[in-house]
Structure formats: C-alpha cells, structure tokens
C-alpha cells in the first residue's frame, strides 16, 4: 500500500516535470532535431524545390568530396584564415576580459559608470553595425601602422600566421568589443569566490600577487572554460564569419554539406580545446 503511494508520487513528479519541459522538447524536435536530420539527408542529395514538391536525387558523398578535395576555394580560402584568426582572438579575448572583470570587481569610486560603459559592447557587437565599423577601418591601432609591425611580422613568420595576426591587429579594438558577455561571465564568476578566503590569505601574509595566482585563478578556471566555449560558439556563428554567406539557397545539397563540414570543424575545435584545457588544469592541480 505504502509502496504504491510512493510510486505514484514519483509518477506525479515525472508527469509535472514532463508538462513543464514538453514545450521545449516539442520545439527542439521541430526547430532543431528535424532540421538537423533533414539537412544531413540533404547533404547527400541533390535537392530541387518545385511547385509540386521537393525533388531529391541521391548523390552520396559527391558534395563532400567536391568541397573537401576538388574545389578548395569554398572552404580553404575563407575558412583557414578565419580559423587562424580565431585561434589568436580567443586568448586575447579571454585574458582581456578576465583582466577587466577583476579590475571592475574592485571597490573604487565611479565603478558603476565604468560598468555601464563596459557592458555597452553587448549591445552593439551583435549586429550589422559592427560590420560597418570594420568597413570604415575604425578599430585598428594606429601606432602599429606607424611602427610597421605588420611588415616585420610578414617577413619573420609563416604567411598564414602573419596574415592572421595582422588581421586581428587591424581590428584589435573590435576584438576587445567582442568581450562584452565574457566580462559579464567573469564578473558573475568572481562573485562566487567568497571574501573570507581572501581575508584568510591576507592574515597568512599572502601578497595580492600570490592571492591572484593561488585563489582567484583556480577559482575562475570553470568560468575560463565556459568563456572559451562561449567565445568559440559566438565567433563561429558571428555575422562577419565568411562561411555564413556561403550557406545559401542556390544549391541546397552543397550548402548543407558545407554546413555539416563546418559544424564538424567546430566540434573538432571544441574537442581540442576541451582536451588542452583538461590537460592544463590537471597539470596545474598536480603542480599545486
């Protein structure tokens, strides 16, 4: 008797939960699951939209082969420089936003005004407006041009990396602009480290420098990780991204194949970062 009642309570809980999650799951199936599956299907087919319906024609791996091996211009000319740029941008964004978040977390007069300014990029950096700024050349660092840094880099580094670095520097300010959400995440994360830990460290005679490396940084590791993931996802879906325009309605099958290759690259990229990150944290913990 008692057991039955317990079971039914459990069932009721599951039912309630299901009612709450149902809209999201339905939405996921309609707007995520089905499109993902269909786009995978399309990438192996030639698709034509006719007035009477959709005409599909099986093509196998043809599109993938075409993009990967036959006509490299679609993928390699745009994607590889972009990837190089991303690899450089990620550490810049992460370090910069960590620095700013830690500074903004101090007590000083005018803190609120500065916070207001630092959250501003969250508002702009999502739209076309940023593209306009990039086109205007706003966002470069003038002093770099004065010192001819780019020619020095060009002559001393492999072309791919030099190009990426130069391009990041040309829009360095905009790179900083991308850090809006990351600063937010770090600020929120910094709040999770309790003040008493710092007090204890201070009483034990730790210098602020030591406190940063031994308390703040280890406490921030999960947020650094989160920020890296967020930055990767954000950069890869950003409107300035060259691949986005390549996915269009001119050839459904080809575009889907490209989108899938692109997605695979994102996954590999995330996987590598995860791997490096877990190695690094393990090494860090072991060293401590």
């Amino acid at each position, binding site marked *: 008797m008692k057991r039955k009642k317990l079971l039914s309570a459990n069932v009721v809980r599951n039912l309630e939960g299901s009612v709450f999650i149902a809209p999201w799951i339905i939405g996921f199936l309609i707007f995520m699951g089905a499109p993902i599956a269909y786009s995978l299907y399309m990438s192996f087919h030639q698709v034509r939209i006719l007035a009477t319906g959709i005409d599909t024609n099986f093509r196998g791996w043809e599109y993938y082969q075409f993009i990967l091996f036959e006509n490299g211009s679609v993928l390699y000319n745009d994607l590889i420089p972009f990837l190089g740029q991303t690899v450089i941008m990620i550490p810049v964004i992460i370090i910069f936003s960590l620095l700013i978040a830690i500074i903004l977390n101090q007590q000083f007069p005018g803190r609120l005004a500065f916070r207001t300014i630092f959250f501003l990029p969250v508002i702009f950096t999502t739209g076309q*407006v940023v593209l306009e700024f990039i086109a205007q050349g706003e966002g470069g660092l003038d002093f770099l041009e004065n010192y001819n840094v780019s020619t020095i880099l060009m002559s001393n580094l492999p072309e791919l990396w030099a190009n990426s670095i130069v391009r990041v520097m040309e829009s360095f300010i905009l790179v900083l602009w991308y850090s809006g959400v990351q600063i937010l995440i770090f600020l929120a994360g910094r709040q999770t480290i309790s003040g008493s830990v710092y007090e204890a460290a201070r009483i034990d005679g730790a210098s602020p420098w030591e406190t940063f490396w031994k308390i703040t940084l280890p406490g921030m590791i999960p947020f650094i990780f989160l920020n890296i993931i967020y930055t990767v996802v954000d950069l890869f879906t950003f409107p300035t991204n060259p691949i986005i325009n390549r996915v269009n309605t001119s050839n459904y099958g080809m575009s889907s194949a490209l*989108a899938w290759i692109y997605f695979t690259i994102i996954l590999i990229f995330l996987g590598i970062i995860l791997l490096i990150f877990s190695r690094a944290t393990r090494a860090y913990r072991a060293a401590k």
Partner: protein
Amino acid sequence: MAKTITNKNRRLNMRLDWSLLRRMKQVLIGKEADQGLLFKIFIYVILIDVAYIYLNPLIFMVTTMVKDATDLLDPAVIWVPRAIYLGTLQDAWVMLDYMSSFFMSLGLATTIAVCQTVFCAVAGYAFAKLQFPFKKFWMFCLILSFIVPPQLTILPILIAASQLDMINEVYPLVLPAMFGHGLKGALFVIIYRQFFSTQPKELEEAARIDGANAFKVFYRVMLPLARPAIVVVFLFSFVWNWNDFYYPSMFLINVDTVPLSMGISRISAAIRAEEAESGPSIFSEPIKMATSFLIILPPIILYMFTQRWFVEGVERTGLVE
C-alpha cells in the same frame, strides 16, 4: 666623542628617513597593497584607456554624422565639427523609412524577447528542479542546440516555411521563441537553469508542504525570485533580436517594411550602386554612420533605463555554475 655624536645623528637621520619612507610607501602602496594610491592610479589608467577604446567608434559615429560638406572635406576637422548639420541624419531617416521600420523592429524584438523570457524560464526551471524521463538525454540536446550553428538548420526551416507559405511572414521568426528556442534560446535556458539551481531546495519544499503544485511553485515562488535573471534574459534577447539580421534576411525577402537591422545592408547596397554610377561621394560615410546611429539608438535608450537592474542582475544571476 664627537665621532659618536655624529654617528648617533646619522643613525637618527636614517631612522627618520625610514619612517618617512614607510609613510610614503603606505600612501603609495597602501597597507593592503590594493588600497594604495599607485594601485588606484594604475586601475584608473587602464579603465579609462579601455573605456576610450570602447567609446571611440561611437564618438566617431556621432561626430561624422553631424559634419557638413565643408567639414567633411577639411582634413583639419577630425573630431569636433564646426557646425552641427542634421541633414545627413534626416536623409538616413528617410532612407530607412524610419518610423515604420522602427515599429516593425520594435514589435518583432519585443514579441520574441517576451516569448523567450517566459518560455525559456519554464524550460530552465524544468531542467534545474524537476524530474522528467530521459533528463540526461535532453540536457545533451540542450547543449547541442547551443553549439549547432544556425547555418545547419536554416535551410530545412526555410524549405518548411516556403512549403507552409510562411515566407515573408514573421511567423518563422516568432514561432521558435514560443517554444523556448529561437536566436540563442539555448543560452537563455542555460542561464535560467543556472539561476534556478542556485535557489535553495527548502523554499520549494515549504511551498509543496503548504499544498502548492509545481505550477504554483513556479508562478508564485520561483518567478518572483528570478527577477535578476529575467532582466538579463529580456535585455539580451531584445537587443540580440533587434540587431539580428541573419534570420530576417532569410525569411523576409520581399517585404516592404523590413526590420531596422536589415535597413543598413539595404542602404549600403544602395550607396554602393550609386557610387558605381557616379563616383565616390563624401556623404556615403556620414550616411552609413547616421544609419548605424539610428539603429542602435533605441537599444541604448533601453539600456540606459535598465542598466541598473541589469548590472545587479548579472551579479546575482550566477549566470554560470
């Protein structure tokens, strides 16, 4: 004798020096190292520099916008124009068809933002506090929908929309939001999930013992508590949807009134076409800047009113685990 006196004197002098030095050190570096003058100056220098970097393009935008023809041609005028000329702004206003585009954008962004705020909260609460079958699997799906780029799903949705005769309508933009998806929907669900999972379990249990069911707990206890998260999600969602042009440009192909975010690319294209015909014009840059200004003005105003809650909200959401 004399020697010992001078020695003593010297020692005294040295001690004086030391105490002076120490006091100077205390003022400069401070007792606690992060309260000294040097440190404060250092912080302000960095912050002001970065604030300048952040505001620079905005200032450039506003000053370029109000320059008239003579100021634009005069290389001596960089930042401060001699006279404020509002003609460019007016042109941009007309080119954007500002009033109707503004209301289009406002309606669209508000509807989507409200839907996402409400329905992502429901999903986030379920993920944080409730039980349902295959929860781990759905959690995986949530993360998947966070990292899947929109390019992967856009074509099938586009085909479906065209089959259902929904092209050039706003439904394909609004419908996903009503199920807690849409632009960055997964991120909002994750934010809510993090927020709700920091709420103490006792709160819920107390309400349960008082006889409230899950809906009542959510509506009466959890939602009022979630104000910081709601502010953050609503503002993010509104601003991102306001700025987004990828989805609208996919679905709204032949519409008379486009959202403002699409307006800028239309105007850029128009200017480019004009330049190809009659050579570069000095006014093309100011026009673009004026357009940008008109587009980001409403979110800035919204942000100015909500920033207090927003900053607070960010700190208290625990945006992350």
